[in-house]
């Protein structure tokens, strides 16, 4: 199994070096990349995510509370009043606290000379390589929470469908805009 792969690797090295020496000489370190080597998101995004998750899970917990209140005077109840509400509140609180910081920890990106590399995911770790020439258009967007913390997300549109809009969230607004301006130069007429 290794033999054909090794064989083609040497082939690619040759074809690359003669056609495009400048970029071919520099290594593309996608493979061994660790989160320390990548640029991380703006730390404020953790607060935004906590806020958003907290609000969402808070509403769910509120639903449980209402259910608890409605069943408070049921005669055949086994558990004391507020038991399920408490569980809901505690789990909602801990999820809203921990998951965003984990998400932040496992999010990294790097803008190379010719590509944008995204690495993300707590459970399912996804590495995406987006050649800059393939970019159709770029959006910088902010919702009300993000505006409050001066963060923005950069949405990269390609013609591909699997990641037709690759989203890079939680960048500082200035960083998002400068990234966009940098990547904008690569948008060509031949993105297809």
């Amino acid at each position: 199994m290794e033999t054909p792969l090794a064989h083609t690797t040497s082939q690619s090295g040759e074809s690359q070096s003669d056609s495009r020496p400048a970029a071919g000489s520099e290594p593309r370190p996608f493979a061994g990349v660790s989160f320390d080597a990548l640029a991380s998101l703006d730390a404020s995004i953790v607060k935004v995510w906590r806020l958003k998750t907290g609000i969402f899970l808070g509403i769910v917990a509120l639903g449980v509370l209402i259910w608890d209140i409605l069943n408070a005077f049921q005669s055949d109840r086994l558990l004391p009043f507020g038991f399920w509400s408490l569980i809901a509140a505690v789990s909602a609180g801990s999820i809203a606290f921990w998951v965003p910081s984990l998400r932040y920890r496992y999010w990294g990106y790097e803008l190379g000379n010719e590509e944008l590399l995204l690495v993300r995911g707590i459970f399912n770790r996804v590495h995406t390589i987006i050649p800059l020439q393939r970019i159709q258009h770029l959006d910088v967007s902010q919702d009300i929470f993000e505006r409050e913390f001066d963060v923005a997300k950069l949405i990269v549109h390609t013609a591909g469908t699997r990641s037709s809009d690759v989203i890079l969230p939680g960048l500082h607004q200035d960083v998002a805009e400068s990234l966009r301006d940098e990547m904008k130069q690569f948008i060509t007429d031949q993105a297809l």
Partner: protein
Amino acid sequence: MEIPGSEGKAFSEPDGMDSEIRTPATTPPMEPKRLHPLTMVQRIIVSLPALVFIMLPVLRSGDSTAWFNLIFGAMYLVFIVPWIALHYLRFRYWITSKELVIHSGVLTRRRRNIPLERIQNIEIEQAPLQRMLGTAKVIVYTAGSARAEGVLEYVSIGEARDIRTVVRNLQQQLEQEETASWSDESLSGAFMSDETLSDEPLSGESVGIQASGDLRPSKPAVLAGELLIALDTRRVFLAGAFRFSLVYLAVIFSFLQYIEPDPTLLFSWLMRGPLEPLEARIDASPVIAAVMGVFGAVMLGWLTGVLVTFNRYHRFKLELIGDKLHRSHGLLTLKEGTIPLSRVQSWILRTNPLMEAFGWVRLEVQTMGINIDQSGYQVAMPFGRMEEVAHILAAVGAPVMPENWSPVSRLTIRRFLARSHIVLLFIIGIVQIWWSGIWWLGVLSPVLLAWSFWRYHGMRVADDDFWVAMRKGVIRRQTWLVPIRKLQTAGWYANWFQRRLGLASIYVDTAGASSGRSAELPDIEKLTAQTIVTRVYDRFQSVL
């Protein structure tokens, strides 16, 4: 009513289905034209079933108390027939040097302008009725639209071909005007590398495009196609024999619903005469009845498969005309369509264990922006040998398919077994609350074991300077051939379980591939997965 002169000329032409594609002497501009007058007749004929349906109670029993239906019938005559006539009178289309214009609408006027450079595909379709009358339906597809952008129902077949030729010539002219400012790549069908193109002695249109300025646009392009494959009757029957269709069920049920016959009467009607002894047997034993029933259903499905395939792919022909694949096929309904090579994103070989055992394969292309009805996947060859696939690929200037297949990690067997058994145990656990006899479902376990090995055996990946190829699937085995220059994004991913085992899935995304049906392959050793993706990306950069 007056008919523009050119329309009359096109009409008086003898059946043009077999004549070569002609070029009208003058291209732009065209007079506004009406559809073929017989359109009205066809519309009325097509609407007749509805009338029959409305009048059914009257026709069936001669029940004169069904006055309500009679009123509907009368309203039909009063409204629909004039509406068809008005629609015909209002409908105009013409081609300018920049766009195809269609004005239509009885109450709401619609004026549609379709820029010629956006037209990707002009399909000509002839259902049996249209073949009798010598007319055809012209369907215009554009890039990036979900459905047909313009439909001309109906024009004469000669006119349909004229429209296609005129649009092609004008497109060529527009492209040549732009050539000065464009790089050659965007024109020559980005899929084909330039050196392979110049090797290939292509005639007509493609030369016009390649030579960029040597041939003046006014020179009529004679489109001589190179025949890539034509399926003979025997081959089409064979293709059908490998197919199983359940369409007949729908037909039978809708028929029964409409007629509502007495099933016992129908049965005895079917079983009369020579089939009498069969009926006696069926009456005698439920086992024989069940076996006969299953056998009958399978045979019927198989027969329908043959008929459906034969109807669809009769006289299937694939030609290369310039930088477009030209496809025509059909027994009752004739279809002609084109697939521009520049729009082809990947090639897909499909087969199943039975077809594979006999060495048959089906070739599809995944395209971008044409005919989303077929969800971007079009059949380039319904049934053929690998050599024929290789021939087609060679003819369109595609490099030779990669040979260096490597398997995925054997751990995929383990993962599949674990996953499927968790599901199996879950189902058994749930069902046995009601029915403890569900334990026999455990016999599926060895089946899953065999399946997992077979699945592992089918999974392969290969790549070279031009392609990434991935093969997968058990019953529906598919091989994706993605030209590296068509890559949009690429990457690898691994969930927690995969990371524990040191595995990763790889994917290569192309423009317009539907999610779930794209080139990806799970459970490759992590290091290999990373190497493949990085190498493919490196090559992508050096190709571009």
